[in-house]
């Protein structure tokens, strides 16, 4: 019995230690986030969405604290409903709304990462669970996995370049899970293609969007109307 109590105490201490480490890492990250008030950058997007064929496109991205975000481009493009570029820094800055805990350690790109789980304290939060792979040596989020109530799970891989000091990645690959796309043959009016595929049903497929950033401009006091003006077509 004593042994069991001793084991539980040790585990509890370890857990407290992990919680502390998570907070420490978040603090380190937040330091970088707080340096950033706004940014703009050139954007190059690559889409690999099942059932959707589209060319890569160029655009410009704008961000302003706390959560103003906009991609200005000419034409149609897709972004996940749970936009990681818009929300993650807010989640980290708002330390009171989430419980954070390190659930383990993993190597990503030969870098030792702590896996920080973020669980919202309030049940009405859209987020169910946020998992962040944070580089321990130089606190940067290398990977995220966000599970929400309505929009499923989105995985993000971040690759860093010049803007490490602001924790801004130069490349983000967003992976989403979605139902297989299927347009009824009658609607597509396609007599040439054979519809040999079985009905889509709930068959899940993975899609990805790659965002490449360059020519960052940091803290240039971007006016608010940039986020409200209409897109040119």
């Amino acid at each position, binding site marked *: 019995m004593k042994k069991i109590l001793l084991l539980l105490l040790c585990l509890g201490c370890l857990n407290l230690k992990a919680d502390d480490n998570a907070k420490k890492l978040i603090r380190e990250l937040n330091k970088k986030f707080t340096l950033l008030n706004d940014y703009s950058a050139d954007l190059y997007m690559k889409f690999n969405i099942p059932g*959707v064929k589209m060319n890569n496109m160029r655009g410009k991205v704008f961000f302003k604290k706390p959560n103003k975000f906009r991609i200005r481009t000419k034409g149609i493009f897709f972004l996940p409903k749970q936009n990681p570029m818009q929300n993650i820094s807010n989640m980290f800055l708002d330390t009171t709304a989430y419980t954070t805990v390190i659930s383990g350690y993993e190597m990503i790109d030969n870098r030792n990462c702590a896996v920080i789980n973020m669980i919202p304290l309030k049940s009405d939060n859209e987020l169910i669970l946020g998992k962040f792979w944070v580089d321990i040596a130089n606190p940067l989020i290398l990977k995220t996995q966000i599970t929400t109530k309505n929009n499923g799970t989105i995985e993000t891989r971040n690759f860093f370049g010049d803007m490490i000091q602001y924790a801004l990645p130069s490349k983000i690959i967003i992976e989403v899970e979605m139902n297989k796309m299927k347009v009824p043959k009658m609607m597509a009016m396609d007599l040439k293609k054979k519809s040999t595929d079985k009905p889509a049903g709930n068959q899940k497929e993975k899609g990805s969007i790659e965002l490449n950033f360059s020519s960052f401009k940091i803290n240039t006091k971007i006016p608010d109307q940039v986020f409200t003006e209409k897109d040119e077509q």
Partner: protein
Amino acid sequence: MKSFIAILNNELYKTMKRPRTYIGFGVIIFICAMLQAAFYHDGKEILSFVTQQLDMVFNVQGNILNGNLICFILLQTLIVQMPLLVALVTGDSVSGETASGTIRFLLTTPASRTKIILAKWLSGLFYTLVLLILLGIMALVVSRLIFGVGDLMAVNSDTLTIIRSDDLTWRWGYAFLIAFLSLGVVASLAQTLSCFIDNSITPIVSVMAIIIIFTIIGMFDLPSFDLIKPFLFTTHMISWKSLFEDPIPVKEIYFSCAVLLAHIILLLSISIYYFKRKDILT
């Protein structure tokens, strides 16, 4: 050549003076306006039927409901109705004159029967072209004015293809050319039947019956139909859509154009051969 131009001129004059010619123009304008109004009010709901799986995961950014998409939908919808409008005029070209007796008026001029049938065929193609140009103006130009210009989200059998707006003009050009080729087959078929039949209505009804039967064959994925499907002109009537795929299936498009052209040449040859030997008994 001068005599041929004179005959062609006559055929065009008659086509443009006939009241039924304007039925086609009226129908195109009416259908386009009706669908444009419907999309103006309920377009987003209609579109959500196609994009519902995407909408679950993504925010689709940009103006999807633009003039290019409306044109795509209109062309896809009207390619089914337009053969009727084309047949209404071309299916009557010989049979109507036979029924009314004016064929005697034509065939007692110095023009040869070959020239007469060629002039009628060209006049039918000209009418088809005018019909398509009107559709182009209504579907593309007017839709762009109402809904704006933007990337095209083309709906194919199992994919949505997003084509950038600056990459669309040449595709529309070729799409309308292929649509013209498709309707050229309909015009040629209608004229050929018109040579064989001596009343106005039967060739028109026959053309529509043939299109309906061939389209139904095309709809079913049955092994016995697979052999004939590639050679049915209806299979290739929607080949213009291939221009909005990525990558463009160039070989498929060439094959479709070849099949359509072969149909036109064959049908025209049959009509010339038969018409040259036809006894005018009415």
